[in-house]
């Protein structure tokens, strides 16, 4: 009886052959995932004070370990786990980038000397703002340490997002990366209502866009009979009568991805979420999510729908132009520095789309390089923003930054340098990145797009410069914000980001070589 049952079971399992998993090649993902799980356990069992110390170290160590694994894996070019995951040079490049940015962001999150008590993360997220105990929660030394495992989970999702070779896996990755971010957005210690509103908005709109994405995947399956990118690409090569499904698939998947990169007209969440989230999380989102989303976007458009280039290019042009114009123009009207950087992020997404629209190897190289430069600069910029504070938290209103150049020249100088980098002034990484992207676009016959991008750069320069004007050319306020001088971790992050911005502007060749190797070896199919 038992034997017969076993036989039956064996017979059934033999019908589905288990995929062979190359654990070593997946090691970066697995390390980060394991660290996330351990983080959850630590949070469950360790005391409050110990986990405040353990969690950041654990997360940081996990990222470093994964980074080492990524470095060891360089040169791998394979499809793993029955075509679910692709490990190739662009994937590894993006994964490494995400890990570096995550590491820097953890430093920011772990900063505990900024506020009167612990850091930027709320003590207890569940306390209703304004209710009894909410004031106590603000000054409490406690921290919602779940933030760290959430971040690590999100990084797992990001790394899987850029590696997925299968649209369904990509969707799963999208959810893994998004859900923790929705939570993280709501964890700000100050301005709880704003933070919760941000989390809510992000969640609702994000869920909406995920629905679009999965609907698009369904259409892709309907067209190609598979959700594997290679097979979709093969199906695109054939002509059939189901083309309408294909176009719907491209459009809907595109909507999902454009939402994640913050491209117009799917950008409306960006300013609110950037403003409401705790600043370290904003930095993490701005840098990490952008890399992940662009990694996925590049893979989808270059691999799965590469054969449709001539069909999606006009749409991409339109989205790119709209994104740049919306980002640059609306940033002009912002009064809040985090919102301004949010619109700047939108404009930068537009510039990146110019590189994607080039649809050639140079475009891939330029986009990857740009992502690295933008990430470093933007993390450093948010780090600096978190340093300028009043008694009520960050002084994020622009008017409070008046005369900062006179009172704290080093900080204002660093921030100006970062703003100039975002504006794309030579000898900063921002310029090199723009150059790489625009060069690819002109080579890829997208000259009009480049002209628009340059005009938008000029408009964008105006609002960056306006902040510099405020900081340096205006008289300081008497009751102005205080620049916190003790936080070593935030200083370190800002310093690393600014140094990278300078180095990548002056000597970009090594990174360009890396990006070039990655781009020319191309996506695996």
């Amino acid at each position, binding site marked *: 009886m038992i034997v017969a049952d076993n036989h039956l079971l064996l017979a059934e399992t033999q019908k589905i052959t288990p995929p062979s998993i190359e654990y070593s090649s997946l090691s970066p993902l697995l390390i980060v995932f394991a660290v996330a799980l351990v983080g959850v356990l630590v949070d469950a069992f360790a005391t409050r004070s110990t986990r405040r110390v353990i969690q950041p170290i654990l997360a940081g160590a996990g990222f470093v370990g994964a980074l080492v694994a990524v470095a060891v894996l360089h040169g791998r070019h394979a499809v793993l786990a029955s075509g679910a995951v692709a490990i190739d040079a662009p994937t590894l490049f993006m994964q490494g980038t995400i890990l570096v940015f995550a590491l820097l962001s953890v430093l920011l999150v772990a900063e505990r000397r900024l506020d009167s008590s612990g850091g930027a993360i709320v003590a207890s997220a569940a306390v209703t703002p304004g209710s009894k105990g909410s004031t106590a929660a603000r000054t409490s030394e406690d921290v919602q340490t779940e933030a760290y495992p959430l971040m690590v989970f999100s990084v797992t999702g990001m790394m899987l997002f850029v590696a997925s070779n299968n649209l369904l896996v990509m969707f799963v990755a999208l959810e893994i990366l998004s859900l923790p971010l929705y939570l993280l957005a709501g964890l700000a210690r100050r301005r709880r209502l704003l933070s919760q509103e941000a989390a809510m908005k992000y969640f609702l709109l994000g869920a909406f866009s995920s629905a679009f994405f999965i609907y698009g995947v369904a259409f892709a399956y309907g067209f190609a009979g598979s959700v594997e990118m290679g097979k979709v690409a093969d199906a695109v090569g054939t002509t059939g009568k189901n083309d309408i499904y294909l176009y719907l698939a491209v459009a809907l998947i595109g909507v999902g991805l454009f939402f994640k990169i913050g491209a117009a007209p799917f950008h409306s969440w960006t300013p609110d979420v950037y403003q409401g989230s705790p600043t370290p999380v904003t930095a993490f989102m701005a840098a990490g999510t952008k890399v992940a989303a662009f990694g996925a976007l590049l893979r989808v458009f270059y691999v799965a729908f590469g054969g449709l280039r001539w069909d999606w290019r006009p749409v991409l042009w339109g989205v790119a132009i709209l994104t740049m114009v919306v980002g640059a123009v609306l940033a002009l009207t912002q009064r809040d520095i985090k919102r301004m950087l949010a619109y700047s992020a939108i404009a930068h997404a537009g510039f990146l789309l110019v590189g994607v629209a080039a649809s050639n190897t140079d475009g891939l190289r330029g986009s990857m390089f740009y992502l690295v430069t933008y990430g470093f600069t933007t993390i450093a910029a948010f780090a600096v923003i978190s340093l300028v504070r009043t008694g009520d938290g960050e002084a994020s209103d622009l008017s409070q930054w008046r005369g900062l150049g006179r009172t704290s020249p080093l900080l204002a100088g660093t921030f100006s340098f970062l703003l100039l980098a975002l504006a794309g002034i*030579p000898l900063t990484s921002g310029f090199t990145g723009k150059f790489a992207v625009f060069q690819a676009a002109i080579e890829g016959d997208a000259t009009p797009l480049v002209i628009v991008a340059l005009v938008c750069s000029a408009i964008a320069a105006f609002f960056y*410069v306006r902040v510099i*004007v405020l900081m*340096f*050319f205006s008289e300081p306020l008497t009751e102005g914000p205080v620049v916190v001088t003790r936080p070593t971790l935030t200083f370190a992050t800002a310093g690393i980001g600014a140094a990278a911005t300078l180095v990548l502007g002056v000597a970009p*060749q090594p990174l360009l070589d890396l990006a070039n190797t990655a781009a020319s070896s191309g996506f695996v199919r």
Partner: protein
Amino acid sequence: MNTVPWLTIMLLVPAVGAVVVGFLPRRRATLAKQLTLAITLVVLVLAVLATVAYEPKRAGFQFAQHHSWISTFGISYSVGADGISLVLMLLAAVLLPVVVLSSWDEVDGPEPGGDGLAAPAGGGRGGATPAGPAGGVGAGGGVATGGVATGGVATGGVEGGGGGTAVLVAAPPAPPAVGLGEPVPARGTEARGQRSVPAFFALLLALETGMIGVFAATDVFLFYVFFEAMLIPMYFLIGSYGPVKEQAQRSYAAVKFLVYSLLGGLLMLAAVIGLYVVSAQHLAHGTFDFATLRQLEITPGVQKLLFLGFFVAFAIKAPLFPFHTWLPDAGAQAPTGAAVLLVGVLDKVGTFGLIRYCIPLFPDAADYFAPMVLALAVIGIFYGALLAIGQRDMKRLVSYTSLAHFGFIALGTFAFTSQAGTGAVLYMVNHGLSTGLLFLVVGFLVARRGTRDVAAYGGLAKITPILAGVFLIAGLSSLALPGTNSFVSEFLVLVGTFTVNKALAIVATTGIVLAAIYILYLYQRTMTGPVTHEENRALLDLSVREKIVVAPMVALIIGLGVYPKPIIDIIRPSVTATFADIGKHDPAPTHPAAAQPGGHS
């Protein structure tokens, strides 16, 4: 001799100096000044040595150096000098120590940016209008807001300056507005909001690096990098160190300057990338090397587009007629030293770019657009002169005269004769000297009197004879009186133009009459006649430091007016080679004497 990497050393010295000076603590203001002066003098010596080592007869770039920089895009660190760039580097190297010395006391002062005359003026004013919310900012803040609030755009300086005059003159402590004039020391005023002296001089050194780099670069990308990077120090110089009392206007001027230049620069960037892509199509690998690029045969249609990209950037920079509106603002709001460098050297980058990049790289397009450029040049000559005549603000006036001068330079450049071309390049140098001196003298006046308004002066020749004399020399050089340096260049430009386009040359010549009007009218209103304002009687003549500042300028103006040959010998072969390269040879000489410009007064 030419194995010495002169240009690289000339770049490194101020660059390192800028970093060192920039990191000096604020207290070490004097050390910063001395160090900066020493560095600029070293650069000057280097520039002179390089000029001596330069061999005008040899073709091509000298002191050339190539190092691969960003090989992915074929970008290299390539520098080299020909006659045209060498004299402009020399000009920059000469002007820098002069500017440093002239700015010695400009940004000092215990008050936030107080230059000794803002404080009492503001103190008096601040007393009359009890400090509002801004009062708490401290004396300096009160001054700034008061000045801006009471004065309109141009008159702010005039009103504010009224009370302050005597102080600067009679430097001793007792300010005229007694009691109330004593600045009320608010909490931490001194620490908050003071303008850093080392930073000012570090910016000057950074600017010098940029100026030398932009002339030395022989890689188009490197040129672009310096072209843009140079904007940033100038932007901060105008915005942070402009007139204390006109905060709104100076940030407006600084932003206008930056945005105009950036817009031009970005259009140029499009053309630069376009050039790279074209080169990648022609050659195996794209390049930015100037010498390689000028060998390319670009199709005329593409040439026109690329030409326009470069031209607009240079026309904004220079500036030529319809792109000039930023110059008067920037010129008026920049601190004197920065203004000298702005019109003296920075703007030359535009005209230099025309002759170095626009013409040799896109010869067909240059031919095609030459009539347009010539027309703009002549319009600029008249438009600038007419506006200059109508100005009451002296710094704006000088800025507008520059517009006219740039018209002459563009005229000479696009006449495509070696004579006019040589004249144009020489004009760039001479304009730097004469307008530089004019700005300096006006700056001295403004520092004494606290206002740029012409009406506040009158009859100063009696009170400050040396200042008036230097003013006259600068003015006469600016209107190209024979015997001064500018005459030679203007003459060459007009003669050279005459041989190819008589009508244009004749029209342009009449522009000289207008030059005489704006200069002499200015001189008459400020220096001659009776003393119209009693308080001006207390003004002091040039100090020893100021005399040292103007002496080399005056010497060069007269010296180059009498004996310009050494400079011309350096310039001429390069200009001739440039035009020969694009197939422009001088027409057979007809009657050069007929082009003798008349109307010098």
